[in-house]
């Protein structure tokens, strides 16, 4: 092979051509006959041998790249079961399809032979396959391709013999026949009937798409491949499946729940049917947002070509599809399966109602959340893809139209909230879906966005509305990309254009100002955002006596700005005003109300009004559950918000429950690691730790770490923190050695990310030192503490919380060396430093106090020790929430001090309380629990 030259090949090739057509047995003879050159013959044989190879590296690659499969390559003419392969007639994600024949006495049966890519090796798998096949063979319906036969080759390759359908994909068929909307709907209803029949027989298709819905020359639709996806999932070994990476469904048609293993029901088929319907009616799959739900208007992608093959015009087609059809599609494409049609029959029925002019059952869709908290605030990593901009330019034209439609609908609906406008969503969608690490330079995208802008300005001079839309959209995109300066320009232009054309008091101008203020917010320019908003609100009020959602929105955003600047009373007042206004303007279940409630709750929370905040967030949780269901990201977020004020008001168990549920939802719903998920895990971990459940908190923090490592493979300050959190849990459970290694990793990360002179470094060293002390590695700990103290003193002078923390470490070290005097001195100095800046119940301050109390005890000063422990335990129990381990440690110290002072009776009582606390710790191995147990034993 290495010596193959074009010249040699030109001699080999014709021989090969002749031989490949011959059955294998006859080849040798033919070759001998036709070729006298020894070398040439050898070369030809070599190639033939390579041809015969079953599954090589190349086959692997081609299969996994997703196109063809090895299965198709060498099978022509081969026998599979009783069938002989004629030719390949297609490739699918699951396997290759061949035209095959079977000779019987009476006739030649033509079948579509489908070979699956999964190998069934165990007899259990084979039995499962056969069982599934018996089910499918039962499906007898005029619109479902019959499965005649199935088997497994010797090589373990499963195959089906199905009715061979000479037809084309339903979309192609309709286009070629130029079927109008009514005819397409009727055809679609037939398809729904077939799916409903299968559902009655407990078979879910799972991979409905036009290529699986063929229509023959008589116009009869036939569905293929029922349930094969399920079959593949169940019979293949999961790890094997991922390795060989066949795909049991087509992502473009996959319902959101399909992308995660889990509950697939008949509603999954409804989703796919919805997409097919959209494609049949508009020529394109409905555009969807990140949750899989329909976004934008259904009439977005209509073009003359699309209308022509539907025997209509763009205008009448758009008219035809608005309203009912739009609603039917939206319902089919709900992210939550329970909100879709319950089955294909229901979908079919609604279409029928529509055709009969009766009211349909689809509900209008929920509006999209829009708020400081909800919008993902991550910077997009360098996402630029030149084609995005190219699409922007291309899309400007149709999205202009779409935006026009959306706006007039919005006006008709009387609500600005329907400003999930086409341009922005479409473009944002593009950006949301782009991945980091793109090879194209960022500048290109900027250039292209500029070009798009210029084009819009030039082309739409006479349509200021559309211009403003494009400007805002581009601004939004740049904002999302983290390019705050680049976002400002188009947004400022949008504001001035809107002000000029519509007036400074026009709601549209106010909206544009709000968008601009968001950029300010992102750049932390809260004061200037506040100014802008106040000015714009004043202008609006001067020009309008009427309230509007634009005003409510502006008030709400202003509230957020006030909050960021800690003007809590103003923030609360503004949010309340906005909320009241929204309630007067929009339906009660509107997302704007949710958003504002959250803003208000946030402000109340900051103001320490935890109970009110908790109430409000509870309401939000209930509303979100009602609107979006129990398994939705928004519900998870709402639960997360609820947790903080619950904790603050001491309801730790409730907080824990809320967070647990949020974490569970996140696990189920998020397909990829993201900051929402990690934030929620962090909150849960913190809550668990406070409740003394260190082991559980360790698990939760580890889960967080796992996600963060995936999110930030280059490292991130959050990872350093999470490592410390895990280490803290480990230390609390008496595993300092493991804590040490994590703390070392964290320190290394901190050094890399923040640099050796960063304030946090000292604390990182101190934490590590304490883990070493706990293992008795005193000599290793010393230099770390010295370095930390030196750095902190240099930075802060004589008194600072950081120095105090270092001193606590120094005290521990001294105590380990049995130098109680030095330990007492250090810990008392630390406590004094803390006292000037922290409340009595603060864990750090308590730690210093307890440490000094321990020293007093060790020095024999029992009375003072008792007093100090007493004070500390009272303080610990008053914490919001009280940290269980600290309370336990305080009580333990008190009990020991009382005992040492001879007051055994009191000591027993105190110890009983200590045991109660210790019982709430979820690991008996924690040093505190061990100590308590020992003391209890000695008192018996």
């Amino acid at each position, binding site marked *: 092979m290495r010596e193959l030259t074009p010249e040699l090949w030109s001699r080999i*090739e014709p021989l090969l051509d002749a031989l490949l057509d011959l059955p294998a047995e006859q080849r040798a003879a033919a070759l001998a006959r036709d070729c006298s050159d020894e070398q040439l013959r050898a070369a030809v044989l070599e190639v033939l041998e390579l041809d015969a*190879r079953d599954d090589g590296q190349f086959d692997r690659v081609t299969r996994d790249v997703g*196109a063809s499969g090895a299965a198709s390559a060498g099978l022509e003419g081969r026998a599979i079961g009783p069938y002989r392969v004629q*030719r390949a007639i297609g490739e699918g994600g699951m396997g290759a399809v061949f035209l095959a024949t079977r000779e019987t006495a009476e006739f030649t049966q033509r079948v579509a032979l489908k070979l699956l890519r999964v190998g069934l090796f165990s007899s259990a798998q084979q039995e499962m396959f056969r069982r599934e096949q018996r089910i499918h063979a039962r499906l007898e319906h005029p619109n479902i391709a019959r499965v005649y036969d199935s088997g497994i080759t010797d090589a373990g390759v499963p195959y089906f013999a199905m009715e061979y359908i000479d037809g084309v994909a339903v979309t192609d068929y309709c286009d070629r026949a130029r079927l109008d909307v009514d005819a397409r709907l009727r055809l679609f209803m037939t398809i729904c009937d077939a799916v409903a029949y299968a559902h009655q027989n407990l078979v879910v298709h799972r991979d409905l798409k036009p290529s699986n819905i063929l229509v023959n020359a008589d116009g009869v639709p036939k569905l293929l491949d029922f349930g094969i996806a399920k079959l593949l999932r169940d019979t293949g070994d999961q790890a094997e499946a991922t390795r060989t990476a066949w795909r049991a469904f087509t992502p473009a048609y996959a319902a959101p729940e399909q992308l995660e293993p889990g509950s697939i029901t008949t509603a999954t088929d409804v989703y796919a049917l919805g997409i097919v319907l959209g494609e049949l009616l508009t020529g394109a799959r409905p555009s969807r947002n990140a949750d899989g739900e329909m976004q934008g208007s259904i009439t977005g992608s209509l073009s003359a070509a699309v209308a022509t093959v539907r025997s209509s015009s763009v205008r009448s087609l758009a008219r035809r599809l608005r309203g009912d059809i739009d609603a039917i599609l939206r319902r089919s494409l709900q992210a939550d399966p329970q909100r879709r049609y319950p089955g294909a029959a229901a979908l079919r029925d609604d279409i029928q109602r529509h055709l009969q002019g009766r009211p349909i059952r689809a509900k209008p869709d929920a509006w999209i959340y829009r708020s400081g908290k909800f919008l993902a605030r991550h910077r997009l990593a360098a996402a630029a893809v*030149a084609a995005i901009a190219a699409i922007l330019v291309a899309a400007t034209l149709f999205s202009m139209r779409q935006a026009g439609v959306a706006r007039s609908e919005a006006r008709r609906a009387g609500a600005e909230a329907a400003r999930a406008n086409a341009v922005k969503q479409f473009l944002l969608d593009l950006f949301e879906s782009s991945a980091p*690490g*793109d090879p*194209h330079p960022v500048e290109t995208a900027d250039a292209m966005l500029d070009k798009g802008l210029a084009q819009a300005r030039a082309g739409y001079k006479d349509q200021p509305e559309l211009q403003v839309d494009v400007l805002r959209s581009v601004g939004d995109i740049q904002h999302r990309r983290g390019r705050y300066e680049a976002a400002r320009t188009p947004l400022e232009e949008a504001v001035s254009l809107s002000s000029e054309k519509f007036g400074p008091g026009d709601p549209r101008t106010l909206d544009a100002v709000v968008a601009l203020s968001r950029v300010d917010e992102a750049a932390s320019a809260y004061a200037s955002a506040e100014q802008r908003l106040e000015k714009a609100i004043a202008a609006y009020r001067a020009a309008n006596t009427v309230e509007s959602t634009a005003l409510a929105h502006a008030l709400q955003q202003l509230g957020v700005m006030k909050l960021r600047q800690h003007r809590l009373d103003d923030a609360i007042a503004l949010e309340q005003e906005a909320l009241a206004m929204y309630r007067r303007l929009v339906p009660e279940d509107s997302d704007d109300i949710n958003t504002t409630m959250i803003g208000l709750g946030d402000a109340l929370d900051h103001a320490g009004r935890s109970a009110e905040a908790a109430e409000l967030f509870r309401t939000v949780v209930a509303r979100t559950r009602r609107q979006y269901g129990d398994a939705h990201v928004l519900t998870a977020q709402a639960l997360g918000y609820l947790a903080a004020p619950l904790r603050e008001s001491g309801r730790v168990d409730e907080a824990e429950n809320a967070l647990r549920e949020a974490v569970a939802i996140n696990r189920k719903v998020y397909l990829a*690691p993201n900051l929402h998920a990690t934030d929620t895990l962090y909150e849960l971990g913190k809550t668990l730790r406070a409740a003394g459940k260190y082991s559980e908190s360790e698990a939760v923090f580890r889960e967080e770490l796992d996600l963060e490592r995936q999110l930030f493979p280059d490292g991130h300050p959050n990872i350093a923190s999470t490592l410390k959190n895990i280490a803290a849990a480990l230390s609390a459970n008496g595993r300092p050695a493991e804590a040490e290694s994590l703390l070392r990793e964290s320190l290394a990360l901190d050094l890399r990310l923040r640099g050796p002179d960063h304030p946090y470094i000292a604390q990182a060293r101190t934490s590590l030192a304490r883990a070493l002390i706990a293992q008795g590695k005193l000599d290793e700990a010393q230099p770390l503490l010295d370095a930390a103290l030196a750095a902190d003193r240099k930075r802060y002078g004589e008194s600072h919380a950081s120095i105090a923390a270092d001193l606590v470490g120094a005290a521990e070290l001294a105590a380990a060396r049995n130098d109680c005097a030095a330990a007492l001195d250090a810990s008392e100095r630390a406590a004094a430093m803390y006292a000037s800046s922290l409340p009595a119940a603060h864990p750090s301050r308590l730690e210093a106090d307890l440490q000094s109390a321990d020293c007093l005890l060790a020095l024999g000063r029992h009375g003072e020790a008792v007093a100090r422990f007493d004070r500390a335990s009272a303080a610990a129990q008053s914490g919001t929430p009280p940290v269980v381990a600290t309370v336990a440690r305080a009580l333990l110290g008190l009990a020991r001090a009382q005992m040492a002072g001879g007051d055994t009776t009191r000591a027993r009582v105190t110890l009983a309380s200590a045991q109660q606390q210790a019982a709430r710790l979820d690991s008996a191995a924690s040093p505190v629990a061990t100590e308590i147990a020992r003391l209890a034993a000695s008192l018996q």
Partner: protein
Amino acid sequence: MSGDITQLLQRAGAGDRPALDALLPQIYAELHRLAHAQKPGAHATINTTALVHEAYLKLVDQTRLDWPDRRHFFAYAATAMRNILVDNARRRNSEKRGGGNVRDDDALERLGGNDLGADLIQVDQALGHLAKVSDRLREVVELHVFAGLEFRDIASCLQLTERTVFRDWRKARALLHGLLDAAPCAS
């Protein structure tokens, strides 16, 4: 832009070289965008067929193109797709040796990638050798593997019979097996 690309394709089909050159970056970019539009973490591979067809539909006004013009689209799309996948594979390879970390969720990663990445790089090299022996075979492979065209469609594209294409595929495949056997081991 849709009009532009269609025109470019038509002109390219008529032999206009600059038009050909103008095409590739656009197609490349669109495919790249589509390749990354998949949800990260999904247990799915890139279906190059779907991507190329989606790119085609997006970029080209279908009613105006005949099959020979489409050939240019698919040929370019195939090459572009090949480049995208191999680029990613190479980058992934360099990461393994500690050369920085790109969080790139693409097909190779989902496939549990590194082995496949090495495979793909080698196949890419083998294709390069194959092209020297027979560019037509290389084209058939690219169209089939990277553009995901069925043999029937390749036949229309290249104005051949389906049988011929099928045979070309077998020959190409055999040669590639051989070239890969002879290739030096992946580092």
